[in-house]
């Protein structure tokens, strides 16, 4: 399989201050036709990863990367004009609150027709026909009537289907879906997930699926990358990572997702909070909340330096973990350069 998306050492800062790293050395690869899920709790930097990929970070945030390649094209070298063709063309985007992603003063049809006319070079009338077809194709009932509707007249599920139609209109090679079902109720969520999976299979797209919910991810992902405070802490094949999580944070996420009460009838919650990106030290970012580090008496090592993403005996070779406890074979002396990537 060929890599469709390659992200190497992506770092996002707020302004010029080098201490504020919202993303720190994020490296990801998505192969052709593959679904990579990016998982992490709120504020971990998932949306900023997505926006950095299409180079649309909000004002004070700036991104740097060793490489950023999509479908063989270097996005770091692309001019703004070329980026506009890549956004919506090579890369389609879905967002968390679909109703707020639609212009309240423009019809559904106008949204879908926009990329159709730009990328398909269709006439107005042809674009209108194609819009209705596309709306029907993503399972919207009465597409002709819906094309004339406005965002406030849609339910969240229909609005997300509209967003999917809009994202697919440019026939993207990569779909970035940033928590596309978080704002939807469970039945609708399942429908949307099925739709995304079906479209992915039909069009042979790759998908970067962002979520905070491992249960949702398990239904759709081929591989999973776990993000904590702007860092990838574990990465591997979906089934294996869920069955045998290596990083204490991933384990905690898996435990949370099971919604299994303990002997006191309490649901498991990870103690403490993810620190803001500004207060980060040289050590492992999860260390202050990590029971495993404590139990293994590795607190000093964990607080002093952060390990590399490394094979940790999880099974397949591309299952890697950034943890002193999980991969004790990694020598602590290597930790002196925490910014280097494997």
């Amino acid at each position: 399989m060929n890599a469709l998306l390659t992200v190497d050492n992506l770092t996002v800062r707020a302004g010029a201050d080098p201490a504020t790293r919202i993303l720190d050395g994020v490296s990801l690869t998505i192969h052709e036709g593959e679904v990579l899920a990016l998982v992490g709790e709120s504020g971990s930097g998932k949306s900023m990863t997505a926006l950095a990929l299409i180079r649309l970070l909000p004002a004070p945030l700036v991104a740097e990367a060793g490489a950023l390649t999509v479908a063989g094209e270097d996005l770091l070298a692309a001019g703004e004009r070329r980026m506009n063709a890549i956004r919506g063309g090579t890369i389609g985007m879905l967002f968390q609150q679909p109703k707020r992603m639609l212009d309240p003063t423009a019809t559904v049809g106008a949204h879908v027709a926009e990329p159709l006319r730009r990328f398909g070079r269709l006439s107005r009338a042809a674009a209108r026909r194609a819009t209705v077809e596309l709306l029907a194709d993503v399972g919207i009932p009465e597409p002709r009537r819906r094309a004339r509707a406005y965002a406030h007249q849609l339910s969240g599920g229909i609005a997300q289907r509209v967003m999917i139609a809009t994202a697919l209109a440019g026939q993207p090679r990569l779909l970035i879906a940033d928590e596309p079902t978080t704002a939807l109720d469970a039945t609708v969520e399942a429908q949307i997930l099925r739709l995304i999976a079906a479209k992915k299979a039909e069009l042979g797209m790759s998908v970067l699926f962002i979520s905070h919910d491992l249960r949702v991810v398990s239904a759709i992902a081929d591989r999973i990358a776990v993000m904590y405070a702007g860092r990838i802490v574990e990465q591997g094949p979906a089934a294996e990572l869920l069955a045998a999580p290596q990083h204490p944070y991933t384990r905690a996420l898996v435990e949370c997702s099971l919604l299994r009460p303990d002997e006191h009838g309490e649901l498991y919650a990870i103690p403490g909070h993810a620190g803001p990106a500004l207060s980060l030290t040289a050590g492992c970012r999860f260390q202050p909340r990590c029971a495993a580090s404590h139990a293994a008496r590795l607190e000093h090592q964990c607080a002093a330096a952060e390990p590399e993403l490394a094979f940790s005996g999880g099974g397949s070779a591309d299952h890697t973990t950034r943890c002193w406890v999980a991969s004790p074979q990694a020598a602590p002396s290597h930790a002196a350069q925490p910014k280097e990537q494997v």
Partner: protein
Amino acid sequence: MTFLVKRLMVLAVTLFVVSFVVFLIPYLTPGDPARKILRARVGDLDADPEALAGLRETYGLDRPLLVQYGDWLGGALRGDLGLSYTSRTPVVDMLGGALTVTAVLAISTLLLALLVAVPLGSLAAVRRGTPVDTAITTVTQAFVAVPEYWLAPVLVLVFSLQLGVLPSAGWEGPASMVLPCLTLALRPMSYFTQVTRASMIDVLGSPHITAARARGLGFGATMLRHGVRNALLPVLTLFSLWLAGLLGGSVVVEVIFSIPGMGRLLYESVVNNDVPAIQAGIVSLVGLAVLITTLTDVVHAWVNPTVRAPHVSG
């Protein structure tokens, strides 16, 4: 469609109520209406009982109030608002002339204000926090405090007396409109700029703009297609408020520049106690204000579908 019908009915009812209240105005102030007419015509002389009786006869002043109102309303509906007490010419003619002058003045003033304010406010929003933004914000905030009775003489001093390029008074031709328009436009221009800036900042940060960019629309195209329309809604509301206000005429500006508009007409009618002119003037101003509000709502509904279309889910 039902939306429009509903608005028009509200308009009719409002006008009806207003007309009755306005009709009562002369009866709300103490004194015999016939005496007031006489005083309006010949000054404060001792009233001749015969003249008074004659006036009551001509204007039907001794009939019951409701009959008089019906009479007046019937006339008004046929476009007859009575004769001015002072000039004895039809009030409709006086009003028509003054209203046209004021409408031309008000609309050119506000279009000028809008033309400057929208680009300026948008620029400030896009360059938010930069010296450009600070300059625009500070200057417009200062402009709001400049009174017309100060600005008008300054403009006259510079452009008429020193440079001699524009007339200092009168109402003939476009050149004579420039200074009154500038005087009147400064404050609405400042407010429009501030509101454009605020709502533009709001729109720039809204999720659907990010989504449009993510579909591959460039910044300019995104603004044109999905930004401006949203950002102009509050400006539109403010515009209609100012229009309704300015149609009442600006006494200060009309007096300083000798413009025969509504402000001067109303001012003189009140001073002269010219009741028919006052009544007609107020009814037409209130009517215009309500009409403008209605038009604004219609335009609003056209620009903003959340007002027009029903909320259905599905």
